[in-house]
C-alpha cells in the first residue's frame, strides 16, 4: 500500500486488534510519574495542587464539607489524567505504526567487516557510524547507510509501503539504504551512517513519543508564556488570602487551590503535547520523517517553494503526445515505424511512444525475442531494432540526420517547421527513420501533473510563491511554467544557481523550502529553511535535509506546508480558547469564594449558580471535562482553508475567541444544574 496516495484510508484504518484508547488509559496513569509530567509544567502544577488538596481532604476545614473536598480533589486528579490520556492517545496513533516496524528490528544480527577484512556476526543494535556490513539476498539491512560496493534489489516496503523492489548501488544518486529494509537479490557492502538511536526508525519513534519528543521552538516559547501566566495566577491566588483576611474573612485553602487550577491555562497546557505529537503523526502518515520539529514549524512559515520541474510539476518523464509524418509517408507507415523503433526501448519515453501508438494504430507486433535490439549508446544516440531485414531507428533530430547522412537543410520544410514548433512549446522532437528513409517526427512533451495548477493557486492564497527549477533553457521553461501556473522560473539551473537563489530569497527575510535528491543538491538543501530529501536519493542529500520523504514524492512538500500550518493554527486556537475561558470561571468562583466576606458580591453570580460549593465544583468539573471534549480537535487539528490572514484570523477569533468566552458560561451553568439535580453539591 502506498500510504501517500491513500492518506484518507490510512488515517481511517483502525489499528488491528485492540482499540487505541485502552492502552492510552493505562498510559494516563503511568504518566502521573512527576518525572514525566515535569515536561508539561502546567500539568505538573495541577498535579502538585492535587496532591496538596488530597492532604487537605484529611484535615477538617471550616466552611468546606468533606464530601465537597473529596469531589474537588478527584476532579483535580481527573484534570491531570485527562491531559495524560490526550497525550497517550496521540502517541498511540503514531506508535501503532512504528511498533510493527520496531518488532522487525529486534534481535537483528549484522555481518560486520573487521579490520583484517573478514566478517563477524554482531547484534545490529551495536553498530556504530562508520562500520561496514555485508548484506546478502534475503537479509535485512541492519541500519541506515550508504552502499559502497555492489548492486542489489531492495524491498523497502517496511518503510515506504511500496512493494516493488528498488535498485540500490554504489556511487550515483541511488546509493542510500534504510535500516530494516530487505535485500531481495545479490549483495551489498554498506557503510553504516548513523549511530544507535539515530536511525530513520528511531527518528520516527522520537517524533511521536511524548517523553522523547523534542519541543519545537514555538512550543517552547508558548510554554514560557503559559508558565508566566501560571506564575501570575499563583501570585493572584496566594495574595488573595491576606487581602481577604484584611477584609475580615478567611478563604478555605481548598477553594483557593480550585481557583488556581481553573485559572491557569490547563486546557492548552494539557493538550499542547498531544497537539504536537498529533501533528508529527500526520507527517509520519504522509511517510515524511522530520529530523526536528523545527522544520515542520518552519514549513508553516514558508514564503517560497523551490520545486524541481521534473517529477514534481511534470511527470518525471516526457511522453509522446503527437506525430508528424514526412511528406509522402502515410500515418500508418510512420506509426508502424515509430512503434517498431521503440519496441525494446525501456525508457519511460520509449514506453510512452509504444503506449500511444498501440492505442492509435493497433498492429501485430513481433515477439521481443525475434528482433535484434539496438540500444541507446552515447556514441550513436539512437535506438531501435533490426527485424526482418529492416532497420528501424529513432533518436534526437541531429543524431538521426547524421545516421541518414543528411544535413539539417535536407529536412523537408513541413517537418522542419514542426520540429521548431515542438521545441518552442517546450517539447522534445525525435525523428524516426526506417531503412534510410525519414518517416517523420515524434513530439515528446513534458506533461504537467493534473491538479498541480490548482494546488499552486491554493498556495498563492496562503501567501506562498512557487518557483520552478529546471535545467531546461528559458524558452522551454517558460512554456511549462505558464502551463503549470508557477510564479517564477529558475531556468538552466545548476546547483550553484539554486543555492544563490535560496540565499537571495533569504536575504529578503523569506523562508525557503525545497526538495532534492542528488548529492549536488546537498548544499541547497542545507541552506533552505525547509529541505526535503527523497529517500531514494543520496545519503549526502538525506543528511543535509531536515525532512526525508520515504515515498520519494516531491509533491509532498505541499502537504508538509499544510501540516505545519495546521499545527500552528491548532495550537493558537486552543491557547486563545483556554485563556478566554477564564472570564466565565471568575464569574463562577469569585462570588462563591467571597460569599463569607462580602455577600453582596453575589451580584457577580451572573450564571445564577446554586451555591458556593456547586459553583466552585462546576468550574473545576468544566475545567477538566473541556480537555476531554477538545481531544478530538487537538488530534485532528484545525483545518485551514486557502484564505488570507485577515479572513483566517476573523474566523478563528470568532470560533475560538468568542466561543471561548461564551462556551464556559453555558457549560458551567449546565454542570451546576446537573450537580444540584443529583445532589452532589
Amino acid at each position, binding site marked *: 500500500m502506498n500510504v501517500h496516495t491513500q492518506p484518507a484510508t490510512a488515517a481511517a484504518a483502525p489499528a488491528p486488534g485492540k482499540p487505541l484508547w485502552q492502552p492510552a488509559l493505562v498510559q494516563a496513569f503511568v504518566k502521573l510519574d512527576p518525572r514525566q509530567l515535569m515536561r508539561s509544567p502546567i500539568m505538573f502544577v495541577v498535579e502538585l495542587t492535587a496532591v496538596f488538596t488530597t492532604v487537605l481532604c484529611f484535615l477538617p476545614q471550616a466552611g468546606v464539607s468533606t464530601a465537597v473536598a473529596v469531589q474537588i480533589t478527584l476532579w483535580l486528579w481527573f484534570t491531570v489524567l485527562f491531559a495524560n490520556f490526550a497525550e497517550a492517545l496521540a502517541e498511540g496513533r503514531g506508535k501503532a505504526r512504528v511498533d510493527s516496524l520496531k518488532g522487525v528490528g529486534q534481535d537483528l544480527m549484522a555481518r560486520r567487516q573487521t579490520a583484517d577484512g573478514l566478517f563477524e556476526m554482531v547484534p545490529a543494535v551495536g553498530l556504530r557510524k562508520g562500520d561496514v556490513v555485508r548484506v546478502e539476498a534475503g537479509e535485512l539491512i541492519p541500519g541506515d547507510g550508504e552502499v559502497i560496493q555492489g548492486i542489489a534489489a531492495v524491498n523497502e516496503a517496511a518503510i515506504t509501503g511500496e512493494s516493488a523492489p528498488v535498485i540500490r548501488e554504489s556511487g550515483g544518486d541511488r546509493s542510500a539504504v534504510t535500516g530494516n529494509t530487505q535485500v531481495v537479490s545479490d549483495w551489498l557492502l554498506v557503510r553504516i551512517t548513523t549511530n544507535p538511536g539515530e536511525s530513520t526508525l528511531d527518528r520516527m519513534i522520537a517524533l511521536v513519543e511524548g517523553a522523547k519528543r523534542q519541543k519545537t521552538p514555538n512550543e517552547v516559547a508558548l510554554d514560557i508564556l503559559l508558565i*508566566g501566566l501560571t506564575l501570575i495566577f499563583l501570585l493572584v491566588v496566594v495574595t*488573595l488570602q491576606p*487581602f481577604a483576611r484584611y*477584609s475580615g474573612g478567611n478563604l478555605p485553602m481548598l477553594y483557593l487551590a480550585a481557583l488556581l487550577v481553573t*485559572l491557569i491555562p490547563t486546557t492548552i497546557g494539557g493538550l499542547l503535547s498531544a497537539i504536537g505529537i498529533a501533528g508529527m503523526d500526520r507527517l509520519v502518515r504522509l511517510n515524511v520523517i522530520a529530523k526536528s520539529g523545527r522544520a515542520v514549524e518552519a514549513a508553516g512559515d514558508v514564503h517560497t517553494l523551490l520545486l524541481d520541474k521534473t517529477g514534481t510539476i511534470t511527470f518525471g518523464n516526457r511522453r509522446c503526445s503527437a506525430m508528424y509524418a514526412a511528406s509522402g509517408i502515410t500515418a500508418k507507415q510512420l506509426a508502424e515505424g515509430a512503434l517498431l523503433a521503440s519496441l525494446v526501448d525501456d525508457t519511460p519515453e520509449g514506453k510512452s511512444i509504444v503506449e500511444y501508438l498501440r492505442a492509435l494504430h493497433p498492429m501485430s507486433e513481433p515477439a521481443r525475442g525475434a528482433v535484434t535490439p539496438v540500444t541507446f549508446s552515447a556514441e550513436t544516440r539512437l535506438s531501435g531494432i533490426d527485424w526482418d531485414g529492416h532497420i528501424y531507428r529513432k533518436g534526437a533530430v541531429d543524431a538521426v540526420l547524421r545516421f541518414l547522412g543528411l544535413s539539417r537543410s535536407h529536412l523537408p520544410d513541413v517537418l522542419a517547421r514542426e520540429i521548431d514548433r515542438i521545441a518552442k512549446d517546450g517539447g522534445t522532437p525525435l525523428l524516426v527513420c526506417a531503412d534510410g528513409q525519414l518517416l517523420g517526427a515524434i513530439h515528446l512533451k513534458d506533461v504537467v501533473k493534473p491538479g498541480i495548477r490548482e494546488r499552486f493557486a491554493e498556495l498563492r492564497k496562503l501567501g506562498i510563491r512557487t518557483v520552478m527549477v529546471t535545467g531546461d533553457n528559458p524558452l522551454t521553461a517558460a512554456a511549462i511554467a505558464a502551463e503549470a501556473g508557477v510564479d517564477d522560473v529558475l531556468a538552466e539551473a545548476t546547483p550553484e544557481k539554486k543555492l544563490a537563489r535560496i540565499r537571495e530569497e533569504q536575504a529578503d527575510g*523569506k*523562508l525557503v523550502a525545497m526538495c532534492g535528491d542528488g548529492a549536488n543538491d546537498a548544499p541547497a538543501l542545507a541552506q533552505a529553511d525547509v529541505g526535503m530529501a527523497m529517500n531514494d536519493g543520496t545519503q549526502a542529500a538525506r543528511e543535509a535535509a531536515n525532512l526525508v520523504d520515504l515515498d520519494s514524492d516531491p509533491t509532498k512538500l505541499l502537504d508538509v506546508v499544510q501540516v505545519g500550518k495546521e499545527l500552528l493554527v491548532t495550537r493558537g486556537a486552543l*491557547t486563545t480558547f483556554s485563556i478566554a475561558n477564564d472570564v466565565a470561571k471568575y464569574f463562577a468562583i469569585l462570588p462563591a469564594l*467571597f460569599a463569607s466576606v462580602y455577600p453582596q458580591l453575589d451580584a457577580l453570580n451572573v450564571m445564577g449558580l446554586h451555591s458556593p460549593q456547586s459553583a466552585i465544583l462546576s468550574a473545576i468539573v468544566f475545567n477538566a471535562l473541556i480537555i476531554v471534549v477538545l481531544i478530538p480537535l487537538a488530534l485532528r487539528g484545525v483545518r485551514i482553508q486557502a484564505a488570507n490572514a485577515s479572513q483566517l484570523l476573523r474566523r478563528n477569533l470568532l470560533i475560538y475567541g468568542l466561543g471561548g468566552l461564551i462556551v464556559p458560561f453555558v457549560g458551567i451553568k449546565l454542570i451546576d444544574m446537573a450537580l444540584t439535580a443529583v445532589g452532589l453539591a
Partner: protein
Amino acid sequence: MSTTDGLLIVLFLALFLAPAPLLGRFFYRVLEGERTWLTPVLRPLERVSYRLGGIDSRQEQRWQQYALALLMFNLVGLLALFLMLLLQAYLPLNPQQLPGLEWTLALNTAISFVTNTNWQAYSGEGTLSYFSQMVGLGVQNFVSAATGIAVLVALSRGLSRRSAEALGNFWVDLTRATLYILLPLSLVLAVLLIWQGVPQTFSAYIDAQTVQGGTQALPLGPAASQIAIKQLGTNGGGFFGANSAHPFENPTALSNLLEMVSLLLIPAALVFTFGHYVKDLRQSRAILACMLGLLLIGIGVSLWAEWQNNPALASLAVEQGASLEGKESRFGITASVLWSVATTAASNGSVNAMHDSLSPLSGLVALFNMMLGEVVFGGVGAGLYGMLLNVLIAVFLAGLMVGRTPEYLGKKLEAREVRLLVVTLLVMPLGVLVLGALAVSVPGPALAISNPGPHGFSQLLYAYTSATANNGSAFGGFGANMPFHNLMQGLAMLLGRYGYILPVLAIAGSLAAKRTVPQGPNSFPTHGPLFVTLLTLTILLVGGLTFLPTLALGPMADQLTLFGGH
C-alpha cells in the same frame, strides 16, 4: 450633564488628538537629528551638551550599553536628588527655612521623581524649598520624561532595523528629547499658565488676612514652570499639596483645559512618531484607536457613575444632581471625571479632585487604568512601549491562528522575546499584589488607611498600584508618609520603572538583530478594526484576569455595598 459638558469632552479630545500627527512627525525628525525650524536655535546648545559630556553623538550603542548608560544616568540623578532633599536646609532658595527631609521620605521622593512617578508622600508647600522644587524635582521632571522617550525610540529602532546590533545612543536621544520636545512645549505652556494667573516667583509666602479675621499663609513660588513640565512630562508631582485642585496651580477653566490636554499631548503624538520609525502609519492609527477606545470606555463609565444619585442619601430631603463631595466646585463633575480618567490613563498622576471621593465605580476605572500597566496613552514614552508589549502579547497569543509563527512588523517572536515579555507581565502583580499583601499582613502599615471596609482597602490598593504603575496620583486619605510605605513604595516604583525598561531594551536589542520577514496579505494583520478589537480585548483580559479578585474586594464590594439591594 449639560451641553457645556459635552462640548468640554469634545474640545478636550480634539485638542490633544488633532495636533498628534504633525507633532509626532516633528518628534521623529528632531529625534533622528533632521533639520527643523528649531535647529538653528537649539543645535548649538545640543553640540555644547555633547562636548561638555564628552559624547560622540555618532557612536551608537548595543542594547546593553544603552541600558547601562540609562541606569547610570538615573542612578546619579537619584543620588543627587536624595542628597539635595536631605540637605535642603543648607541649600539656597529656601525663604521658608524648611528643614531637610526624613531619610525614608527623601529616598521615596527621589525614587518617585527619577522614575517619572511623582508619588508625593508630602505636601510641596510645607516640605520643599524652591531650590528642591526647581533644581531637584524640576530637572528630574524633564529627564525622567526624556528617559521614557529614549526607551521608546530604542524599541522603535529595534522593530524597524534589520539584522542590526545597535539601537542608537542614549545620551543623544535623551538630549534631543529634552531640548527639542520637552523644553519648547513647556515654555509655551508655562507662559500660558502665567497668563492665566499661576505664580512664577522666588518671593516668600504671603500672609493674608482672611474674612474671618484670621491670618493665612499663601504659598507662592516658581510654580508655572514646574506645572508645565509636570503635565507635559506625565510627571504629575504638584507644586502644592492639593495639586491641580489648588487655585494657584490651576486657576481657571481655561488653565484646567490646557493642563488636561497637555497631559495627553505628548503620549498621543509619540504614537505617530513610532509610525514614522517603522514606516507604517497604519500601525499608529491602530494603536491610537485602541488607546482612545479604552480612554472613552473609562470616561463613559466614570461619568455615568458620577451622575448617579447616591442611594445613601435617597431617604433625605436633599436634591441630588451628582456627587460633588471631594470635587473642586470650580470645575464641576465632568471636568473632574475627565481629569481623573486622563491622569490615570496617562500615568500622569496630577489630580484636580480627590480620587478618594470618586464614586466606587469611577475609582475602579482610575485603578484599572493603572493596573493595565499605564498603556492607555500612558507615561511619556513609557505608555507606548508598554502598549507595544501588549501588542506583542496579542500577536503571540493569536498570531498562530493564521498558520504562521507569530511575527510583528516582520520580526519573529521567539522564546527569548517571550521570556522577556513574561518578566514585564509579572511587574504589576508583584508590585501591587505581593507588596500590597505584605502591607496588610504585617502590623503597622495598615494604620495609614483612614476608612473601614472595602473603601479602606481601595486606598491601600490604589497607593501600591499608583506606585508600581509609576502614576503617582494618590487616592487621598491614605497616610503614606511612614517609613514602611516610603520604602516599599520606593521599591514598587523602581520595580515598575526598570522592570519594564530593562526587558524592553533587551527585546529591542533582540528584535533589531533579527532579519525582517516581508509583510504581505498573509502576514498577521496588525492594523484595521479586527486587530484593534483583539488588542483591546487582550489588554482588558490580561489586566482583568490579574486584578479582578482584588478589585472585587475593593471598589466592587464598595459599589455593591452602596447600591446593593436596589
